[in-house]
């Protein structure tokens, strides 16, 4: 790795940790805000910056979860339970130390798994044709349920909206103008970046502008204890177990790091002899979710690199970034750009080792950032959003698009709408459409091509099952519960 790449890596680690530490500045927001800066970068450097920011933001999220009961990222929500309780018991420093140890180890376990598993998975996918790629895109779209926070109908609506927005402009096959209504700026379609910036970054600034923006935190936490014998013996097995669980969950398309954190916590409780201490400040209650969420975040990069489908909202944004830089993530990337891919893998590994070593002294610096009031950070975020949207095509029209989607995003946020699903539809819609039409063209218009090829059929059935399950889940529960109650009564 060159010195330049190493500098970018260190910078990205710092930015990611910083983003994770500040509540209201999420991982997707950091990736979206920094994406425009990568326009001028070499692709390798661009993706070192973006993927490491993503991985490190999950790492940083635990700090405010432990100290202030305010998870810096959604992935750190479970860390609040025992982390904040430890802080209340005067063990904030130890909780931070356990968090650092668990986060770094979990992410390293997942990175090693990613290096081992991505190539064979991509090699398997090399035999796929357009029908299979359409099925994979459909599988990617079916993760909508996990991005919907329990509101699957709204999530499906969001996917449809994203697909519709992505269809504006030239039709990829016939160059017919779709939904442009003679607006010249719409001819090339809506750009992903202004849409994403609008949906993710602007609404949060609008929301926070109504609250007390001059609040700062009380940032006293005592001595941070990372590599002590006490930590290694008490949380070591939990860290290892949750790291493996988190990796497996992350690899499943749509399961994501939040699910991994929940499972990491429940597994930590399940394997414990004394379960009564959980929720009252047990270090394993910090180690379990932190190891699993970091492993899950890295694990979700496996389907991204191997199959070209996102495992989370942030990886959907990363797919957009790949396309922006002229790459099509998926099995071909592993064979045609293997050096590029392995450099990114190495960067993630090094970033996690660096974070594990330097997180302790860095926490002191990062926490000082929390003393900067949001009233000063807000304008900076808005300016970066504006210039990021403008510099894509040097077009003021894109800034208007960003503002429009900022307002839309704010309204959607008021209705608890899962905006990540719009991005999912926007990114995967065109991939699904082009492969769908190509497969039909190659089969002479025979639509059964998707069902006669075994791999395509299997993937479509899995996608359908993932999509339909949340809708039939209440019915299944109703059918199962009476039987279970009767059995218990008997």
């Amino acid at each position, binding site marked *: 790795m060159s010195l330049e790449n190493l500098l970018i890596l260190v910078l990205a680690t710092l930015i990611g940790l910083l983003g994770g530490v500040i509540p209201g500045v999420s991982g997707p927001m950091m990736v979206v805000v920094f994406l425009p800066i990568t326009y001028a970068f070499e692709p390798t450097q661009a993706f070192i910056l973006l993927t490491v920011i993503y991985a490190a933001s999950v790492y940083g999220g635990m700090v405010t979860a432990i100290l202030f009961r305010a998870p810096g990222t959604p992935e750190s929500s479970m860390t609040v339970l025992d982390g904040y309780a430890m802080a209340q018991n005067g063990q904030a420093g130890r909780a931070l130390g356990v968090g650092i140890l668990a986060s770094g180890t979990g992410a390293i376990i997942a990175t090693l798994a990613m290096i081992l598993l991505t190539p064979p998975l991509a090699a398997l996918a090399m035999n796929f044709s357009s029908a299979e790629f359409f099925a994979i895109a459909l599988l990617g779209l079916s993760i909508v349920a996990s991005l919907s926070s329990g*509101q699957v*109908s*709204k999530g499906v609506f969001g996917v449809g909206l994203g697909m*519709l927005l992505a269809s504006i402009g030239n039709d990829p096959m016939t160059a*017919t103008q779709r939904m442009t209504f003679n607006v010249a700026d719409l001819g090339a379609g809506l750009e992903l970046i202004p849409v994403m910036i609008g949906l993710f970054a602007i609404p949060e600034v609008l929301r926070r502008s109504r*609250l007390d923006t001059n609040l700062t935190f009380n940032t006293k936490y005592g001595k941070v204890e990372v590599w002590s014998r006490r930590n290694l013996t008490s949380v070591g097995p939990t860290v290892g177990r949750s790291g493996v669980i988190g990796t497996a969950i992350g690899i499943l398309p749509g399961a994501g790091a939040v699910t991994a954190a929940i499972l990491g916590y429940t597994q930590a409780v399940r394997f414990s002899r004394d379960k009564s201490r959980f929720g009252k400040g047990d270090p394993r209650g910090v180690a379990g979710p932190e190891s699993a969420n970091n492993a899950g975040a890295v694990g979700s990069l496996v389907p991204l690199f191997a199959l070209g489908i996102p495992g989370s909202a942030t990886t959907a944004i990363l797919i957009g970034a790949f396309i922006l830089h002229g790459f099509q993530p998926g099995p071909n990337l592993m064979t045609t750009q293997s050096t590029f891919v392995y450099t990114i893998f190495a960067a993630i590994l090094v970033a996690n080792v660096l974070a594990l070593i330097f997180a302790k002294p860095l926490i002191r610096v990062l926490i000082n950032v929390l003393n900067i*009031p949001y009233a000063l950070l807000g*304008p900076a975020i808005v300016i970066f959003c504006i210039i990021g949207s403008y510099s894509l095509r040097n077009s*003021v029209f894109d800034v208007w698009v960003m503002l429009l989607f900022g307002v839309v995003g704010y309204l959607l946020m008021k209705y608890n709408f899962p905006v990540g699903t719009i991005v999912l539809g926007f990114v995967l819609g065109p991939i699904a459409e082009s492969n769908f039409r190509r497969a039909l063209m190659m089969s002479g218009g025979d639509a059964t091509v998707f069902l006669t090829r075994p791999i395509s059929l299997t993937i479509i059935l899995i996608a359908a099952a993932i999509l339909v399950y949340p809708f039939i889940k209440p019915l299944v529960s109703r059918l199962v519960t009476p039987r279970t109650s009767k059995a218990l009564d008997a």
Partner: protein
Amino acid sequence: MNRTSRRQRLQLEPLVWTGLGVVALIVVIAGVPASTATALQTPRFWPTAAAVIMLVAGLLIASNALAGSRRALSDPVAAQPQDSSGKPAAADPEVLRRYNHLLLIGIIAAYVAALPYLGYVVATFVMAWVLAWTIGVRKILSATLASITYVALTTVIFGILMNVPLPRGRGPFVEISTFFF
């Protein structure tokens, strides 16, 4: 917001999604020309599929809300305000500046409209200062220093290092912009 108006808003919300689905379908029919190709391969097929997905999802949201309101009639506890997913509606957090978000949208819109005329440096400095003040900075020096820092930083990164042709404005503002980048 009083409880009655909030409930009305929440009852109207499911219909909004269905309405948006219908609008999407109309936009597709009006905005994508019909083609002689096989139905599945026409340029209209995919956007139509997207609009139909929106419409079906909108109808599902509406039916869920209807089922929720029926449950509310039979269960007084469930009669509390709910959103369309059937979950209790989130309480408003401690809002200090009720219309600040609208002000911010207005400021950014005015900035984007003025950008081609005032140029990046002047327009961004003014916007950053007004934004900082609107969001809550109450010291003139802090707002001014922050605005200068943001403009300087972004001009150096994007205008000079990345060669992004930032707007230079018109008339006398071109001279001001040329002085910086």
